[in-house]
């Protein structure tokens, strides 16, 4: 336990349970368990055991080297002939459906667990909300989009190299993903995340290393005014961080779910531009 932890555990014990929150209020070492912790543990262990078993012992392309199998092994989604039906045939992707189901339950339980703990600590729910954004990405790509197109085969294979191959092929399936405007916005926010993270981390460290010399947030504000005329402030930077990261994920959801459902060719998508009405009268 951390030096100050006992006080907060006592405080958490005094919070009355509500529905599934605050049930099974026990700690195992550092970890809080709780109802959603049990759900996450059961489905997480089930899903990962099946994944490792498939990749290490069943995958037809496996090698004698388990570490190599971890990288190159996969569980493929059901073939197109299955459609969006629930199959129980192991040769037709049952284990893909099984692991995707387990993973979805685990991710959801993990989010609820974060909300449970946030409630016990009497803090806001921003962390489970942020986790919900990335959960929505998994659900969009593996469940919503395949169901919209009527084929589980649209989901990505569960494997390290296999999902890279899938992503590489997906980039060229709708002509070229570099023409997908939501992909472009998503990537901008992705690099923007790294940029904001780098600036924030470096800024706080730059002040913390000089704390003994009396440096405080005024120095940082002045540095940013000098730098580009604006200092967003110590609360504002965390709002910016939160929304940059979340919008990045939500934009990438959009760029996936529109591909194949609404847009078949992201280059042709831009044809509207050259014939847009606002060019009328300029002689094009």
């Amino acid at each position: 336990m951390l030096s100050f932890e006992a006080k907060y555990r006592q405080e958490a014990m005094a919070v009355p349970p509500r529905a599934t929150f605050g049930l099974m209020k026990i700690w195992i070492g550092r970890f809080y368990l709780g109802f959603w912790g049990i759900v996450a543990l059961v489905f997480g262990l089930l899903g990962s055991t099946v994944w490792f078993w498939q990749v290490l012992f069943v995958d037809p392309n496996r090698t004698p080297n388990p570490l190599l199998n971890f990288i190159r092994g996969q569980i493929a989604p059901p073939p197109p002939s299955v459609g969006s039906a629930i199959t129980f045939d192991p040769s037709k992707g049952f284990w893909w459906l099984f692991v995707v189901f387990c993973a979805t339950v685990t991710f959801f339980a993990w989010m609820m667990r974060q909300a449970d703990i946030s409630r016990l600590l009497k803090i806001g729910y921003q962390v489970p909300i942020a986790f919900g954004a990335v959960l929505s990405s998994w659900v969009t790509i593996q469940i919503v989009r395949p169901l919209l197109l009527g084929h589980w085969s649209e989901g990505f294979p569960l494997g390290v190299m296999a999902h890279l191959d899938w992503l590489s092929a997906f980039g060229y399936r709708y002509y070229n993903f570099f023409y997908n405007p939501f992909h472009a916005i998503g990537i901008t926010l992705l690099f923007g995340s790294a940029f904001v993270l780098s600036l924030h981390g470096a800024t706080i460290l730059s002040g913390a290393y000089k704390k003994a010399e009396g440096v405080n947030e005024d120095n940082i504000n002045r540095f940013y005014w000098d730098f580009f005329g604006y200092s967003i402030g110590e609360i504002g930077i965390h709002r910016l961080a939160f929304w940059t990261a979340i919008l990045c994920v939500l934009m990438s959801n959009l760029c996936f779910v529109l591909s194949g459902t609404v847009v078949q060719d992201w280059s042709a998508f831009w044809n509207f531009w050259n014939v847009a009405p606002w060019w009328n009268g300029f002689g094009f």
Partner: protein
Amino acid sequence: MATEVYRESFERRTKTVRYIRILEGLADTQFGPVYLGMWGAFALFSYLMCVFITAIGYGEQVGYNPIRFLREFAVLTLYPPSSASGLQMAPLQQGGYWQLATLFLVLTLVFWTIRIWTRAVANGLRPMVPVAFSAALFLFAAIYVIHPIWVGSWNEAPGHGIRAVLLWTNHFSVKYGNFYYNPFHMLSIFGLLGSTVILAMHGGTILATLSYGSHRELDEIEDSDEGTHRAQLLWRWVMGFNATAFSIHQWALGFATLVAVAGAIGVLASGPVEPNWFVWGCRADITPGLQAACPTP
């Protein structure tokens, strides 16, 4: 002390401050005073030169027609010289504009780094921001300068234009046998997605504990208080590990730097070290579904 002198001059310049009321309740509202200084002037000059050269190059392509400029803006490109001219100076219309614009762009970024270095020191901070920025500068230099010089052709660099950088990214990956198999690219992407995760985690954690004052990070690093305690316990109870108010910013800087440094190594290794990353993947035996496409050893 340079810092003290600077503070005095700061007081005199506060007349140039503006307040943007619309940001009230979201973020700080004060804009300015921005500092120019010698390095700022150099950076501004070379940036304007870069913009001017690019505007001339684009202007020639659209016959200086502003409507055509707007209509074709996303596809207008200053192309680098052809591979035949290697590292030579090229005529303006055949890559010379690109060479001049790139030269001024590199100068801008170097001056900008020096500028934020001097500003950090003048404000009493350790120059961590310019150190972090120089990682991004290294990636930029690797793509636009070092790799082209190493392989002996400016043609390897991206053109200047919106579609041009996307096309370059696409072609560079394909030219070196698919970047998805490049282990440095994998590491860079790991850092990139990891950066977004850490950003969401840190931003979310601080926003969740705002009412306990965890956002006063410099004070919290010196002497952690209730907000930081609750934030730390959240992650300790969720995943069995927690950073401190200090170490989370080391994680942040580390992950963000990894993106640029691993990415730069991945670009530099493409060609001279490994001409085809897919073939590298074949040698590493990680291409089970595509064995037929591998060269026979």
